[in-house]
């Protein structure tokens, strides 16, 4: 039985050796010395031929057992050593995660563009088209088609930059109404449009006036568009821009191109209607003008106002942005101080 006790001894000694190893190289040497072709286990197995037929399988299976447990021990130790090594390496690679990252600059969209995009997307979602129009307009479209013939007093209200007697910088986005109405084929469906863009007035620039500002015009024309539809549409707009809790209020007003005409107030988003400095203690803030398209505007475009009618509204992104962000000087939008512009990062 000496072979078996040899194996027994070999196993004990081998396992003890493996246990104390602290490098993969030494571990490898042990593996070779114990399990290699010249190693003791191979030797034992070689000496098996001298054993009896009964003993041979017994010793053989025991030798395999010893080899397996040594192999397993070496493998386990190897994993252990590798993990240890990796941990040491990772530990040596430790960095200060609180150091700042490398700078990456992302540009911002102008706050007026943000307001405009927001409103465009709202109306696109309601099936409107976005129509662009010329900034240099004809008197014909800017005034006459909009029911403001020459000598109309309302022309004084919007002091105009003329280029010639007939050509001017548009004073509002309303001429796009006239241009679109003229071209629209009602056989293809109703007309639902908004038109954003720059407009110009002969004004001296100060905190509340700018010779250049922006407008967004809205127009819906079909066979049965009601003033209730206007109110509902503006309610959607007001809630979208100024918050879901907002209410709107229509007040009679006057525009040559709508009849009835209204000013639209939104309940103060600052105080909720109780009264504060933003709403001048009225609870309401005037945000836009609107009305039912004047029959003359419809007829001027060659459309029968007895059959077709609709509503129109006009709002100012500059005013919206000033209200929404508490900006008190309209010139900020056009001076482009980068510190001012960079505040407005979120396009919500």
């Amino acid at each position, binding site marked *: 039985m000496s072979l078996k006790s040899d194996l027994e001894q070999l196993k004990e000694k081998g396992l003890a050796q493996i246990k104390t190893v602290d490098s993969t190289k030494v571990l490898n040497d042990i593996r070779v010395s114990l399990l290699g072709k010249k190693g003791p286990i191979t030797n034992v197995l070689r000496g098996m031929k001298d054993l009896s037929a009964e003993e041979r399988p017994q010793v053989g299976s025991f030798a395999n057992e010893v080899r397996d447990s040594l192999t397993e021990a070496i493998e386990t130790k190897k994993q252990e050593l590798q993990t240890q090594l990796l941990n040491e390496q990772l530990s040596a690679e430790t960095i200060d995660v609180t*150091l*700042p990252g*490398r700078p990456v*600059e*992302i*540009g911002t*969209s*102008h706050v007026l*563009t943000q307001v405009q*995009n927001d409103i*465009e997307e709202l109306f*696109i979602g309601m*099936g*409107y*088209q976005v129509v*662009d129009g010329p900034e*240099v307009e004809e008197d014909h479209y800017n005034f006459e088609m909009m029911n403001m013939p020459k000598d109309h*007093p309302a022309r004084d209200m919007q002091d105009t*930059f003329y*280029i*010639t007697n007939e*050509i001017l*910088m548009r004073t509002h986005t309303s001429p796009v109404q006239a241009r679109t109405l003229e071209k629209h084929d009602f056989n293809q*469906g*109703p007309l*639902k449009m908004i038109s954003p863009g*720059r407009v110009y007035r002969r*004004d*001296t620039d100060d905190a509340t006036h700018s*010779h*250049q500002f922006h407008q967004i015009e809205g127009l*819906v024309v079909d*066979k*049965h*568009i*009601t*003033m*209730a539809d206007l*109110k*509902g*549409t503006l*309610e959607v707009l007001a809630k979208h821009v100024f918050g879901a809790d907002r209410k709107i*209020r*229509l*007040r*009679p*007003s*006057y525009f040559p191109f709508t*009849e*009835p*005409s209204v*000013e639209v107030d939104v309940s103060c988003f600052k105080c909720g209607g109780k009264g504060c400095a933003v709403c001048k203690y009225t609870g309401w803030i005037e945000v836009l003008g609107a009305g039912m398209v004047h*029959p003359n505007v419809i007829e001027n475009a060659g459309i029968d106002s007895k059959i077709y009618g609709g509503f129109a509204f006009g709002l100012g992104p500059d005013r919206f942005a000033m209200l929404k962000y508490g900006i008190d000087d309209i010139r900020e*939008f*056009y*001076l*482009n*101080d*980068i*510190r001012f512009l960079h505040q407005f990062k979120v396009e919500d």
Partner: protein
Amino acid sequence: MKISYKWLQEYINLNENPDVLADKVSLTGIEVAGVRYPDKGLKKIVVGHVNSIEPHPDSDHLNICQVDVGESEPYQIVCGAPNVAAGQDVIVALPGSRIADNVKIKKSKMRGVESKGMICALQEIGFPENVVPKEYANGIYVFTEPVKIGEPVFKYLGMDDAILDFDITPNRADTLGMHGTAWEVGAMYHEKPTFEQPELTETATKAQDLLKVAVENKAVVPGYYLRIVENVQIKPSPMWLQIHLWNAGIRPINNVVDITNYIMLAYGQPMHAFDYDKLTRKEILVRDAKPGEVITSLDGEDHQLDPEDIVITDGVVPTGIAGVMGGLDSEITASSKTVVLEAAVFNGTRIRKTAQRHNLRTDASTRFEKGIDTASVTAALDAAASLLQQLAGGAVAQGVLVGNDIHPEDAVIDIRLDRINHILGTELTLAQVQAIFENLGFKVTVSDTDLMTVSVPPRRWDISIEADLVEEVARMYGYDNLPATLPKIAMTPGKFNPQQRFIRRSKTLLQSAGLSEVISYALTTKTKAQQFIMTADTALTKLDWPMTEDHAYLRLNLVSGLLNDIAYNVARNQTDLAIYEQGRAFTKKAGEIRPVEREYLAGAVTGLVSGDNWAQDKQVVDFYYLKGILNTYLADHDYTGDISYVANTDRPELHPGRSADVYVGEEFVGFIGQVHPAIAKAYAIPETYVFQLDLSTLLTLPTTALVSQSAPKYPATSRDIAVLLPDTVTNAQVEAVIKRRGGQHLQNIHLFDVYAGKNIEAGHKSLAYSLTFQNPEATLTENEINEQMTHITDYLTESLHAEIR
């Protein structure tokens, strides 16, 4: 227009809190800008009687007054007013009182003399300077009618009132008179106003024997009426009249002038009075002014008249500017005896232009230009004459002198109930709508079950079509009562058009590359408008009448605006900037009037891309930084044509050695370069790089439709090549050669090094490229690649005299 609550009560039964009334008026018709209570915040201000006065011993202008304020003992009050005198009934602010501007009056000593309170001027109890009668402007106010000593003064001065400030839209001039306002407010409360027309007694003297009247240009003077009142005695008006005027913001002058103003306020009909005796010829001729004519208006100003002005003349010489202001020569003065009263209708546009031309916007001109009630012209004239009779002892001559007679008619409009509900989205009944019209003073006859024939009096000249009536119904019914719905119509697809999508994508790309959007002014100076133009054959567009030279021309470029912005920021120590603008440039050919609007995109960078930090050295912007952004932007669009950059030394605003024109295929689309140092200096900006693209052109260029391909199955192989070249040879030339001889499997040319200096022959440079070859169908063999490389090197040597290293 300042609306007195108490005056309104003379016409309608009104019992509403004035603040509530103001809100209601705002929501129903006319915006009320505010409500003023003249006696608000004032207290312990009473009528006092000056028993006696004696000069203050230590002052040359103060007087010591013993004033009866209704208590057992008179109060001793020191007063500095020059017009104080014994026997006067005056305004006394008692000790402990509050006067205007929340000033508290206390018992005090003035130069050693005790003073219990203060005798007040009207201004001191809150009257605006411009309504205080002239005789009291520089002193205390003295009551001229019986008042009770010790009583608060407010009721005697009409201060126990509420004044509503109507902010009238141009179409609602009917409320520029109290009668019209009473109709408007009455309709809100279902109250019908009543107006008392004063009785008029005429004398036997015939007006036509005293004065001839004629109107030359009847088209612009559709109504012209005169009355003559003799034996008029000029004096101050009674209190009730003065109160009506000053609460409406008009200064009382004398009875004649006050009556004309009062009638204007009541009827909305401007009224002019002038002195008959000052007419050189006893005739009135209304005509267009003649060139060169001059008149001195009541305010003492001389006016060069224009043939578009209408004038009142004595047959020869102008005595007044019609509808705007009377002439100084025929002014009513204290000695006037015979007064001519004029009530007329003048063409609104003519009056508006005259008022603008002479910078004379008056209460009269405002009413004429906005439109008056043509049905009440003679009623107003008669009422004025009657008041002259009552308040100035005048004798009204028989008859009205008519220069032109107007025949006002109601506007008759047919409208169906169904039509109103169709437009408003309501379900109003005939009775509801009819009541609204009738409350407004419109006559309604119903036929055919729901067809209303509505007669609108000339007072509401703003109403002439169906839509106008719909508005009356809507506002009187109340916009708050209107339902809120969304249009119930056929569905329409909502989407951006290709240009809108292109512009949105462009902005997103540039922002991702670190550029921030700016919006500059499209109107700029002549110099800046024509800098950085794309092509030389472009003409400028100028405003006919600019506000300032800073904004007089339409821009032909976007870059100059960006440079303005950079200058603005740099001046505020913001030196690292990357900005862009998307907007329009206004180009045109010489001789054309209307410019073409082209969508441009421009960017500018200056300073550092990133500053020094612990991890990396600072990176300064340069040509290639901006070019990288520009090229990434252009490459995003997948143009069919190649993007190329061609050096251009001729752009005057760019550094001649650092600027390039940008092409896509054969098409010029813009430029990139360093701002010329001279231009940079003019803008006061540091080294700056800019680009400008014509998006309108880019939008028209063909793009390659995407056909997706699987990721390559066979490996790619790279070969490096370094070439030594004369300085003058460009990278573009080398790349062109490589591309031409690279064969179909050359996938990519990557320039990884540019070197000049040590170990390189002077005037030469070394360029090193990594070339990638790939065959999607098979693995390329060493031989195939070697063969291709030989082609490339041979041709580089041959055509560019390159030395392969």
